[in-house]
């Protein structure tokens, strides 16, 4: 089902995210999805060679999820494919019945595990969104007609509400809305006040926004994110909270509590939540329960 239909119905849309393995065996991943996610969330994002690390393809994994009855969100980046390949893959997604897209620019190739690769970036997140719209109108980017029925998608994009240059991000968000973005998922939020302030400005675009959550696993992880991950800032009190009871943090209870608390504080200001568990999919049911979802 398209996420847009859920938003229109006024549902608080809950999505999670899985990263395909670096290999083609997906039994374990499917088992995790069946056990912890299926029936509890609306759809699952499948990352596209996340952080420029080469893995199993997003589209294939989306199809595998669809086959077990889970709605998938096809993440598609501009890092590895030119406009010919991107358009072609989007048609392929239509063939497989994938209805939701998340259009991203993508991390630079040099950040990943094949840093020698050619960075493509023929399109970017904005022109990618516009291109999908063009396909939906029955033409390719160059204006050549498509054969038969035109595809139709729910088109998503991302934004960083806690970025240190949030004004620059809002300008980009506006460009994405104009280019056809129908919903947004955000970068991980650890500062609800900043998120709420951001939403006051983002409201004007009239497009639903899902709060982004990355479960904080331990002090090392959050320090790493603070130093290296764009748009993420974990405040010192939260780092102290993770430090306070080592056993509790190790068991994942602190991370679950923090995540649920952020959701509760932001819930009234947004239209859904997107949980990036990074391998801790098993914690998602607890987070949802604790957040009252």
């Amino acid at each position, binding site marked *: 089902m398209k996420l847009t239909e859920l938003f229109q119905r006024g549902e608080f849309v809950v999505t999670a995210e899985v990263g395909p393995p670096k290999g083609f065996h997906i039994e374990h991943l499917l088992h995790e999805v069946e056990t912890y996610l299926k029936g509890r969330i609306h759809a699952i994002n499948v990352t596209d060679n996340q952080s420029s690390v080469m893995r199993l393809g997003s589209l294939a994994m989306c199809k595998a999820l669809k086959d077990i009855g889970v709605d998938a969100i096809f993440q598609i980046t501009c890092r590895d494919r030119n406009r010919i390949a991107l358009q072609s893959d989007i048609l392929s997604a239509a063939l497989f019945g994938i209805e939701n897209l998340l259009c991203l620019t993508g991390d630079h190739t040099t950040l990943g595990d094949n840093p020698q690769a050619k960075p493509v970036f023929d399109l970017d997140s904005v022109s990618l969104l516009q291109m999908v719209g063009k396909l939906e109108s029955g033409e390719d980017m160059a204006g050549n007609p498509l054969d038969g029925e035109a595809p139709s998608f729910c088109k998503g994009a991302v934004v960083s509400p806690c970025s240190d240059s949030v004004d620059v991000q809002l*300008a980009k968000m506006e460009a994405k809305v104009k280019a056809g973005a129908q919903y947004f998922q955000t970068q991980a939020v650890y500062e609800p006040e900043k998120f709420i302030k951001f939403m006051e400005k983002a409201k004007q675009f009239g497009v639903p926004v899902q709060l982004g959550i990355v479960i904080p696993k331990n002090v090392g992880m959050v320090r790493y994110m603070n130093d290296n991950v764009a748009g993420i800032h974990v405040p010192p009190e939260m780092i102290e909270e993770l430090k306070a009871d080592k056993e509790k943090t190790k068991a994942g209870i602190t991370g679950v509590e923090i995540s649920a608390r952020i959701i509760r504080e932001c819930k009234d200001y947004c239209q859904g939540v997107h949980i990036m568990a990074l391998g801790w999919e098993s914690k998602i049911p607890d987070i949802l329960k604790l957040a009252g979802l």
Partner: protein
Amino acid sequence: MLITQLKSKDTIEALAKGKVFIINCHGCKEVYFPEPEADELQKELKAKADVTEITTRDYICNPENLRLQLKKFEEKIKEADTILVFSCGVGVQTVAAYLDDKRVYACCDTCPLPGFQGVTPLEFDCGQCGECYLNYTGGICPITACSKSLVNGQCGGSKNGKCEVDKDMDCGWERIYRKLEKLGKLDTLKYPTQVRDYSKPFKEEK
């Protein structure tokens, strides 16, 4: 602007087979040529290989000029087994085409250098995209100042104003935004979605 860097000594020594004829090009200001390093390497090479001539010319990329300049070496070139060229990639290609039946080898790697045609190296660079965006972007080139050459705004990778690719490099789109902010021209960012036309620099204007 280009910069030529010498290939490794091992690589060049392995190329120097039989009678070796060496051509250096110190021609144009467009190319930075590593003169002292090339000099030293060629001296060493002379001790190890059968180098019959080292000649330093200019503008070997001009075929007619090249022909005239090599005229007086006709005999030596004829008997040479290998021609080593220390120049930019265009120079090597010109020599290889002119001495069509000779083994002509490049001894330099050619890399782009910011700055422009024949002038000093600069921090400013132009990617010769064929559809200049500077008027939208406050005079800051999105093609060369942004690691991904994005034309529709900042990606999600900028942290503390720096680019995700290099913490020492300012994010080009952060610079563009701040500049337009300063000029009171943020509205120019509301231009319609841009898509690069990669055929453009090669297309003839109608």
